[in-house]
């Protein structure tokens, strides 16, 4: 309960707080004064009534000396009757005698107010007049105590006075509080106005973000100091803001410039990429062109030879025919003709076969350009099949091919391409690394690589001479042209590995020791990007 009250009071506007403070103080002060005054008045009224009565009793007692001395009851009575004029006197008793021998000499009793009996008041410690004002006075003459006078007065007058006074006090208090309430309204403004102006300014600044606003000053007190500090703070904020804006503008400019530069760079990059692509294309075209030229050149030879052989055949056949028609055909002439036919057709066949092989190889290279199938497969399994298909070729030799690959290994790539690569490598090895009757071992070792596979193709053949090594991947480069080498095998392998498989191929070889090809290939993502594989 008190907590809610405290909270409510804490949330009051400053205006109301101040008013409340002033009012509370005033009310308490006025109440305190009123209560204190009323109490004092009561005491004073009572004591002055008592002393009044005492004085009266003294006078009456002095006047009663003779009456008491002479036991003049009537006179004594008359004296007491004078008290009739004093409205609040309830009773008065004149006692004659001293100490324990006192006797009632005269009695006055108010007609309309009840009071104690004189007989009850006789003892000195009588409590009969407890709720009255009592005055006891000895009747003495020249130092001799003749008797005692007791006057009993009620305090009605005191109460009446007090009531009147209290009422007046209450009215004054009320008037004071009303005045305070009215004044407090004005006075509190001295404090609340500057504070509220400050609060309002702060609100406006917070709302609008306009730091040029300032709080109005109202005087040089603590609040004035606060307002001054606030305004000073705002000055600083304004300056800081301006600085910030400038910096911001600068930054924006910088960013713009950077962006421009970036854009330019991006453009350049794009251009470079384009150029690169073009270059690759061009290179491809060039290589293709080279390839075509190479093939054309290559094919030209066997075809030329074939043409020569064919024309020889034709001319000799015509000679024979002529001889036949002139009946100059001889047995030796015919026999020579058959020999020539046999030779020529052999040459023709061989060269045509050669040309056909060349075309086949070229077709292989061309086929590279078409997209093959990409899927996830187990190299172990696949390579095994490749080797099986190569079986017939291998059977003619004494070469053993060993495969070392984790059967669970998987890769997502072009299996057809891999097949081609391996086939070419094997063929190449069979052709170049070994003599026809040589014994040897080819090791294929597949292991997991970061993001893909590493394939090691190792033979223990002749090895490659250091001056030949850099050129082995060049198209139409072969050291065994007469043995049927097209010079395209490793070139195709290179192209396939770098372009299709998106990997790389390295070769290490030592004469007499053997050759090792290292192929690194990456697993293709679901949406593989051709452009990446090209640059890779």
């Amino acid at each position, binding site marked *: 309960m008190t907590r809610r009250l405290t909270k409510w009071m804490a949330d009051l506007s400053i205006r109301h707080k101040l008013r409340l403070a002033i009012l509370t103080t005033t009310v308490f002060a006025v109440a305190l004064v009123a209560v204190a005054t009323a109490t004092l008045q009561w005491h004073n009224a009572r004591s002055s009534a008592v002393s009044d009565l005492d004085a009266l009793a003294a006078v009456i007692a*002095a006047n009663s*000396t*003779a009456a008491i001395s*002479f036991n003049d009851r009537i*006179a004594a009575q008359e004296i007491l009757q004078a008290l009739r004029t004093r409205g609040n006197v309830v009773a008065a008793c004149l006692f004659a005698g001293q100490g324990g*021998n006192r006797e*009632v000499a005269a009695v006055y009793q108010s007609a309309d107010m009840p009071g104690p009996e004189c007989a009850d008041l006789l003892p000195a410690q009588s409590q009969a007049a407890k709720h009255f004002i009592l005055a006891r006075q000895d009747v003495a*003459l*020249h130092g*001799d105590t003749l008797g005692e006078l007791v006057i009993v007065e009620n305090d009605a007058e005191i109460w009446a006075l007090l009531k009147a006074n209290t009422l007046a006090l209450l009215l004054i208090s009320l008037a004071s509080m009303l005045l305070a309430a009215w004044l407090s309204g004005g006075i509190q403004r001295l404090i609340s106005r500057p504070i509220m102006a400050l609060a309002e300014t702060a609100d406006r600044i917070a709302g609008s973000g306009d730091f040029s606003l300032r709080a109005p000053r109202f005087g040089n007190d603590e609040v004035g100091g606060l307002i001054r500090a606030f305004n000073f703070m705002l000055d600083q904020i304004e300056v800081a803001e301006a600085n910030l804006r400038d910096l911001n503008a600068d930054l924006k400019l910088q960013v713009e410039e950077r962006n421009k530069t970036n854009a330019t760079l991006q453009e350049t990059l794009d251009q470079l990429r384009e150029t690169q692509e073009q270059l690759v294309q061009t290179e491809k075209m060039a290589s293709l062109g080279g390839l075509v030229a190479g093939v054309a050149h290559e094919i030209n030879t066997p075809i030329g030879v074939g043409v020569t052989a064919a024309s020889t055949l034709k001319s000799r056949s015509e000679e024979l025919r002529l001889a036949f028609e002139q009946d100059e055909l001889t047995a030796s002439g015919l026999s020579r003709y058959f020999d020539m036919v046999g030779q020529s057709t052999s040459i023709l066949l061989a060269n045509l076969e050669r040309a056909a092989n060349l075309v086949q190889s070229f077709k292989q290279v061309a086929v590279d350009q078409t997209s093959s199938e990409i899927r996830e497969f187990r190299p172990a399994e696949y390579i095994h099949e490749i080797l099986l298909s190569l079986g017939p070729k291998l059977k003619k030799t004494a070469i053993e091919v060993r495969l070392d690959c984790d059967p669970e290994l998987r890769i997502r790539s072009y299996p057809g391409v891999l097949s081609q690569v391996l086939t070419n490598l094997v063929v190449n090895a069979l052709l170049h690394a070994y003599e026809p009757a040589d014994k040897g071992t080819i090791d294929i070792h597949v292991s997991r690589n970061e993001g893909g596979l590493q394939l090691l193709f190792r033979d223990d053949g002749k090895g490659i001479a250091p001056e030949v090594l850099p050129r082995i991947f060049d198209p139409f480069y072969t050291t065994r042209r007469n043995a049927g080498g097209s010079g395209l095998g490793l070139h195709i392998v290179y192209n396939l590995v770098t372009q299709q498989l998106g990997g790389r191929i390295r070769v290490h070889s030592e004469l007499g020791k053997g050759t090792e090809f290292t192929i690194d290939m990456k697993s293709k993502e679901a949406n593989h990007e051709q452009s990446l594989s090209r640059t890779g």
Partner: protein
Amino acid sequence: MKPGVTSGWRGRWPGVILLLLSLTTPSAALAQDEVDISLRVRAAFLFNFARFTSWPDAEPATVDGRLIYCVVGNSGLTRALRVATEGKQVSGQTIEVRAPERPTDLAACDVVYLNEPSDAWLEGLRETPKLLVGEGTDFAREHGMVGFFVREGRLRFAIHLRRVDEARLQMSSRLLGLATLVGEGRSP
């Protein structure tokens, strides 16, 4: 010894007198029975007169520190007065009660009571600072200053004020208030 039961004040002045007299010493209590009530009252009054009267300073009576009562012609009163004033003082003066035989013996008296207003006695008392008390309002009117009389069963007294003044005596207004004033008023 307490003098009997005293109930409320109802004009039973004998009881009151007894009360007053009980203020005296115990030996006086024995004497009470022998003295006539009226004498006792008169004695009491005489005693009280002195208390409300003041004598001029130069008076030998004042000087020698004694207040002397002289009762003439009433031995009973003399006795009663002696009883009433025994051990008492008036304004620091001790009290003496005498019963002079001859008028010349009145010289030292302060208060003189004449049972009978005879010229012989009155002669030397005129305009002397002595309080002259007698019987009857006539006494007060013609001879003395104070005269006892009884009205409605109560002892009262009359005072001739001018004579009091002429004797250079001063009487308290309280006493005068109780008295019946006779004669002309105060001399201007």
